[in-house]
């Protein structure tokens, strides 16, 4: 048969994924590259990113906002790599985290040091968002804790900090050493979760930012930093010096925002997003309006939910591209590697070991690691998903081939079949249930891992889920999570439909898993008919 249905479906799959990729690839042509503003993954950073982006657009520059790209190290790497042009950060973070190797004091000339990296820095935007240690007011009063040093008297208190705070040298390690804090129960979590944990009593104290909107809403008090551990965290924008040259609009816009945002303004903007559930875009537009800039050409009037529904199609296409293109690459690479592993056991051990080790790298670490090589957005996500998806397909191919009974292999050899023919006619069909199971595992795995891809700007449903986490908004979370779950279910169903089509009927029958419906048509009579018989048939048909 020439029109093999499997070939047709495969080409449809490949074609479909490629179209999905090209349709959603954000990299436009390089000549007119818009300024890329990025933001870290918390509300205030997103608002600052949105303010700058809208200002640039209002002043006539082409700009895009990579919302909620990730944590400090990721943004800094992306900035150095030229994948983003500007983002908002804090002086304390720059000194203690980004330039920690330089051992700068509080009064150092940051701009000069940053210039060596090709990075410029604005003056303070007008507010200091330093760390504070917060407790629920009632609990603090009951325990008599008013200052951070009072915490040392309560070693049994469980503490929880945002993950970044636990890791950075000017965060929990410094706090613990300077105040000699004895607490052993210390957990790391997402910043947005800490308020809930604090409210529920799971943790007694956490690090907060002084401009956080929730401080009031959750009735939290800030403990006095009586040993002055936390330095100055003036909000600034970092930007690439070459971007300022390339786009003359960037520098005036940045200068325009210096000293413009006071602490109460920032708290109010944070509260508008986190507590009143307005979009960052709308809040930013309102702010710009208050300083006399009209940024109404962006769809800030549209409700965030409507925005998400409007881009559901694009998100779905992108998510499909994140799931199926790596999957196709995995099949194209993993199955041959699995075959090679079964053929040459030494190579197999080595290759399966290497792929297994790659699998153990945490997905976030993997994505960050790929940024200097591939930038941000779709390519590193694709590469990461490819690396993660390789093991199940490769290993299952290997195991499937390895589990072909020896006596069947011997029978094939006894028939005088070549090794290649034996593989094609016998071993691969017998291994097909295992190989298909591996493909399913990878596909379902990809749906989940693709969500993490949103952190580095790969798009898809993860973007909505991240926004949901950021806004502490269950509806938003579900708007991202439900389509992802549906996709995973569809893949499960699709696998069930695909199985009878790929796994030979006889094999399923022998394993008691075959419906009669799929029974292939088999010619029973050997084609040996005498001319007289043929004549008889014709007469029969004509009557």
């Amino acid at each position, binding site marked *: 048969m020439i029109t093999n249905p499997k070939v047709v479906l495969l080409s449809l799959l490949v074609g479909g994924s490629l179209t999905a990729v090209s349709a959603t690839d954000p990299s436009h042509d390089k000549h007119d590259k818009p300024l890329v503003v990025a933001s870290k993954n918390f509300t205030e950073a997103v608002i600052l990113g949105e303010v700058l982006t809208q200002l640039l657009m209002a002043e006539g520059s082409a700009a895009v906002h990579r919302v909620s790209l990730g944590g400090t190290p990721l943004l800094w790497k992306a900035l150095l790599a030229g994948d983003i042009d500007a983002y908002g950060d804090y002086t304390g973070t720059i000194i203690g985290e980004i330039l920690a190797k330089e051992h700068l004091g509080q009064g150092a000339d940051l701009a000069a040091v940053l210039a060596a990296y090709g990075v410029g820095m604005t003056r303070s935007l007008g507010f200091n968002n330093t760390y504070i240690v917060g407790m629920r007011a009632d609990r603090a009063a009951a325990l008599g804790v008013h200052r951070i040093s009072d915490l040392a008297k309560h070693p049994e208190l469980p503490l929880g900090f945002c993950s970044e705070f636990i890791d950075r040298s000017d965060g929990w390690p410094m706090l613990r050493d300077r105040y000699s804090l004895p607490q052993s129960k210390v957990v790391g979590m997402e910043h947005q979760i800490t308020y809930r944990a604090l409210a529920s009593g799971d943790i007694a104290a956490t690090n907060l930012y002084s401009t956080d909107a929730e401080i009031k809403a959750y009735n939290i008090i800030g403990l006095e930093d009586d040993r002055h551990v936390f330095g100055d965290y003036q909000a600034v924008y970092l930007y690439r010096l070459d971007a300022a040259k390339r786009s003359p609009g960037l520098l005036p816009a940045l200068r325009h925002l210096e000293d413009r945002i006071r602490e109460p303004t920032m708290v109010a903007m944070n509260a508008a997003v986190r507590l009143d559930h307005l979009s960052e875009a709308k809040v930013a537009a309102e702010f710009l309006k208050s300083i006399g800039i009209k940024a109404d050409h962006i769809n800030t009037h549209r409700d965030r939910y409507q925005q998400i529904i409007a881009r559901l199609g694009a998100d779905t296409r992108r998510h499909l591209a994140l799931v199926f293109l790596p999957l196709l690459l995995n099949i194209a690479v993993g199955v041959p590697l699995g075959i090679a592993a079964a053929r040459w056991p030494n190579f197999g051990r080595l290759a399966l070991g290497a792929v297994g080790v790659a699998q153990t790298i945490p997905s976030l670490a993997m994505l960050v690691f790929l940024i200097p090589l591939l930038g941000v957005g779709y390519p590193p996500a694709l590469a990461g998903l490819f690396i993660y998806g390789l093991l199940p397909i490769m290993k299952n191919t290997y195991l499937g081939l390895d589990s072909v009974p020896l006596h069947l292999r011997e029978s094939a050899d006894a028939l005088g079949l070549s090794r290649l023919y034996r593989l094609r006619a016998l071993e691969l069909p017998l291994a097909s249930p295992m190989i298909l199971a591996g493909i399913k595992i990878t596909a379902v795995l990809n749906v989940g891992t693709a969500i993490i891809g949103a952190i580095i700007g790969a798009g898809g449903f993860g973007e909505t889920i991240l926004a949901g986490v950021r806004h502490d908004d269950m509806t938003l979370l579900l708007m991202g999570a439900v389509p992802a779950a549906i996709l995973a279910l569809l893949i499960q169903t699709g696998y069930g439909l695909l199985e009878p089509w790929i796994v030979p009927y006889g094999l399923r029958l022998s394993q008691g898993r075959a419906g009669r419906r799929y029974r292939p048509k088999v*010619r029973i009579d050997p084609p040996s008919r005498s001319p007289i018989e043929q004549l008889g048939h014709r007469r029969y048909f004509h009557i």
Partner: protein
Amino acid sequence: MLKATRVSKGFAGKSVLTDLTLVCATGQTTVLLGQSGCGKSTLLRLFMGLLWPDSGAIEIAGTLVTETNARSLRRDIGYVTQDGGLFPHLTVRDNILLAARYFKVEPAAQCQIQPLFAMTKLSPELLGRFPCELSGGQRQRVSLIRALILDPSIVLLDEPMGALDPMIHRELQEDLKIIFSTLRKTVVLVTHDVSEAAFLGEKIIMLNQGAIVQEGSFADLSQKSKEPFVVAFLAAQRSVAWPNEQATVPAKKAVEHGARHDH
């Protein structure tokens, strides 16, 4: 003609065949008889070129089997294993024609299907079935057809009836005898079943621990054997086959056959 000259073969330091020399004549049915583990299946695999002797030489129709010609020589050999070795994902028809397709002789092979089905007393309806839909006896018959489809001059059978119940066993045995005597192929059959060897073997080679104990017709073995192992082996199976005669028959036989036996 199959010939093994001074063949030795061991696995992981354990010797399976030691300095074995034998000839299976053309057009004759030779039975390799012995206990399990005596090296008879290993010998078949050596003939097939699926294993290589540690020392000694294997010849098929006067040609020395080497790594380079083993696969082409195999085309002239049909092979039936204990469980049939049918591929579960292929229909009976595809199982039978697999090798023919590979060697691109499918039309010729298709013409063989009907006569072979008639000869093995199988209904052509089975062509569309899968191995798991066949009875044990049917599977072995299909396996035999697969072995014969390319009209090889040599057929090797490794305990072909080992997994069958006695009734089927008997039927197949009788059919095999007719088929072998009709086709006059060089047949080597491996078994541990004395009655099977007696029924089918024109020549019986008795193996014990990798060496030939005795060879000859069944009459030679059962009546003129001076080898205690041969006598004991034959007697043991007779006592298992007729448990109520257990006490008397071996003794009677042993006396009849001239072996010493104290009452």
